[in-house]
């Protein structure tokens, strides 16, 4: 006797055995699916752990306490306290004098150079600022916490291994000895790295900061928002509320859908060919960056905005028309306010993508090494993601932690924006 499809007769035992097998495969499948979720989430965890693990130490920078004697003879030989003399004086001499005083035994030229190399060149600028702000400290001696060089910082943070042969590490045995001696006297400390948040880029890792890039990002985002939000909402309103069904409208719709999927680098090529070569707009400017990014962001605003407008029930429009409202009044007084949370959610998400975007900006020259903090939308500048790219390419070990720290800051902004979008979306989810 055979069952359907030629199977042998199904006895109770056979069914039970097969059932067992089927349940096993059910469990296996379910486990595989669960494993996929766990795997994806562990990728996320690995990514964040690696970034935070590499970057958290950058928020504290090694400082060394030195007794700086503000020698009036060296700084201001004329004694007139003339700001120009004060500005052009060599403040490195003060740092060197203080170091030599601490380590009188160091006499040879090359050793001296290594010793002076423990302190960053930026320390002299700090001293200069102090004197410029208050010339009366000339002649005094003060104990100051000065910025150490990046190599000393890396050693203190343990990123340069001490147990490898001297020739294979960037720090000599002498330098290690001096630093340890300073440390024993309580003169080495890790202090909060304010410079990282207040200064522009620098070739010296210990002096490099993200403020220049952050401000460039701010200007670029401002231009992007000013252009893409009004245009995006206008397009969405026109297409949803007014546009007649014809070929032009269809063409616009197809275009928007395709633009949303064009690789971002192609927008960079467009910006290079049109804005820079054709219109001769300034290279590396947030204005051009903003223009390029707004073209890229537009479809990402339009598509959710249209969805938000469609979600407003027709009865609202009909009721408004019934009360004698004009088409514009219906839209601006009733439909748009109701759709606004949804539109804003899309806008925030679009902007957060634009904030993390770097490929198109490489094309329009926002990769230049720029020390100055930009003051306007036509000043040369860079943006946070591109700064990350630039630092990631740098050879110095200390830039690894700077890069990770900049990533932490960027991710912080993105998470804030996305949280905002999530909260708005909650408010937008409204059943009619």
């Amino acid at each position: 006797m055979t069952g359907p499809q030629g199977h042998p007769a199904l006895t109770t035992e056979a069914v039970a055995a097969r059932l067992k097998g089927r349940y096993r495969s059910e469990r296996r499948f379910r486990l595989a699916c669960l494993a996929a979720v766990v795997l994806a989430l562990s990728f996320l965890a690995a990514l964040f752990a690696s970034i935070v693990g590499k970057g958290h130490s950058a928020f504290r920078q090694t400082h060394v306490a030195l007794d700086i004697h503000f020698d009036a003879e060296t700084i201001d030989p004329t004694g007139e306290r003339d700001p120009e003399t004060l500005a052009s004086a060599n403040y490195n001499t003060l740092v060197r004098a203080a170091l030599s005083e601490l380590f009188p035994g160091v006499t040879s030229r090359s050793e001296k150079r290594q010793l002076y190399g423990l302190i960053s060149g930026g320390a002299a600028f700090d001293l200069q600022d102090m004197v410029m702000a208050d010339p009366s400290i000339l002649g005094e001696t003060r104990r100051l916490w000065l910025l150490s060089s990046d190599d000393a910082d890396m050693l203190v943070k343990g990123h340069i291994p001490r147990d490898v042969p001297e020739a294979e590490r960037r720090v000599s045995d002498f330098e290690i000895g001096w630093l340890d001696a300073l440390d024993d006297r309580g003169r080495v400390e890790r202090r909060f790295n304010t410079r990282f948040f207040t200064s522009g880029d620098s070739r010296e890792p210990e002096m490099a900061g993200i403020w220049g890039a952050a401000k460039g990002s701010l200007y670029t985002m401002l231009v992007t928002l000013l252009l893409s939000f009004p245009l995006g909402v206008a397009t969405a309103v026109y297409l949803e509320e007014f546009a007649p069904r014809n070929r032009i409208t269809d063409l616009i719709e197809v275009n928007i859908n395709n633009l949303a999927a064009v690789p971002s680098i192609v927008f960079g090529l467009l910006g290079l060919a049109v804005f820079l070569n054709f219109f001769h707009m300034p290279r590396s400017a947030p204005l051009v960056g903003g223009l390029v990014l707004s073209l890229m962001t537009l479809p990402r605003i339009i598509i959710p905005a249209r969805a938000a407008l469609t979600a407003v029930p027709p009865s609202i429009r009909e009721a408004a028309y019934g009360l004698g409202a004009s088409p514009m009044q219906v839209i601006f007084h009733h439909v748009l306010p109701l759709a606004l949370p949804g539109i804003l959610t899309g806008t925030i998400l679009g902007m957060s993508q634009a904030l993390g975007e770097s490929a198109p900006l490489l094309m329009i020259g926002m990769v230049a090494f720029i020390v100055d903090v930009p003051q306007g939308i036509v000043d040369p500048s860079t943006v946070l993601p591109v700064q990350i790219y630039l630092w990631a390419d740098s050879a110095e070990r200390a830039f690894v932690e700077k890069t990770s720290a900049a990533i932490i800051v960027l991710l912080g902004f993105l998470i804030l924006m996305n949280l905002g979008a999530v909260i708005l979306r909650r408010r937008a989810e409204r059943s009619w």
Partner: protein
Amino acid sequence: MNTLLLIAVLLALSAAGFELGRRRALGLVGHPKELRSLPGYYGSWILLWCLVPSVLALAGWIALEGSLVDTWVIRSLPQEIRELPEARLGLFLNDAKNLATGNIVSREVDDLLQTTADRYTSLRAAGRLARTGLVLLLTAGGALIGYRRISLRFDAMARVETAFKTILMIGSTIAIFTTVGIVLSLLFEAIRFFQAVPITEFLFGLGWSPQTALRTDQVGSSGSFGAVPLFAGTLLISAIAMTVAVPVGLLAAIYLSEYATRRVRTIAKPLLEILAGVPTVVYGFFAALTVAPLVRNFGAELGLSVSSESALVAGGVMGIMIIPFVSSISDDVITAVPQGLREASYGLGATQSETIRRVVFPAALPGIVGGILLAVSRAIGETMIVVMAAGLSANLTANPLEAVTTVTVQIVTLLVGDLEFDSPKTLSAFALGLMLFVVTLTLNVIALRVVRKYREQYE
């Protein structure tokens, strides 16, 4: 005046114009009801007159200023500099501009460069002043014109509504202009490239080394612009990315839509979406500094020599980036499969996994395929991960442990830095861009078709 400040002033003035219009209308009559339109419409009328002409003028100014200033500066230069080839002249102007803005200059600063830079500075300053004057004049003039048109008989509402509708319509055409701009700019430069290098060589040539073209005696020399290694490298990396993203993304989507409890779903889904929100430059950094050394050391322990810029690392990390993309589309598609199909299958005694594999998955397949096509187009166009983690030299190999380069990497390396716009080296980037655009566009069109077809099936 600073551009942003000018815009702020412009907006403030327009707001004042709005109030002016409203008051003017109210001043004409004893009671608002006697007006033909609501008072706000008279305000909007003046607002439009303030904003539209001045915004158009400002946009035009910003667009044209660069080329006008350049023309003027060139006119003032001595004969011998003006007759330089376009590229060298451009370099000179660039240096002058850099000097004027206090940037790094690539040549020694002589008198001529200094005067040119000074000329830039003065022309820019004059331009800013003129721009501010023009914009403010147009704002005030617009306000005046609008103000004088307001009368008792004036139907502000009809005018304002028509104007708004026109503005909305014009705004919506920007998408078309963008596409046209992309196509034209890519085509224009690509055609110039194909005049120097035959298109067949570009598409079928096996050797890619654009650097050799820098030497003047070798411009457009044969054999250096064959893009096949780039296409192969792009395909290899995308394939690796998809082998990571498709199984993980798909299974995760199945778990989240079929098995997970509500609570797990509400936590896990946003977490997965974070992966999609992480900027690609971060993935690039992760790939180059964390994953690449790990893979290399692991390979060394197995006795394999893994390149530090292996396709495996770049593709694998790209795959991680694409997981949420695959999973969210698959999730949507799987949820859209009618519940009735599942219930019928359960009713016949199938287990949940049998239902998923034999009923839900086949039903959702077209949508999933569409989603995967979209993900492939994303992988092909992805730039930062490969720029940071993949190689620069064009190897024609299928070995994932070796370094390969991609189309996007080459575009970036060719176009970053000082450019000469008449060398095939620079122009080749646009030809590559055109290829990229055409391929991703085709993939997208097919994918959207497939997804739409599928959706219609169940609606």
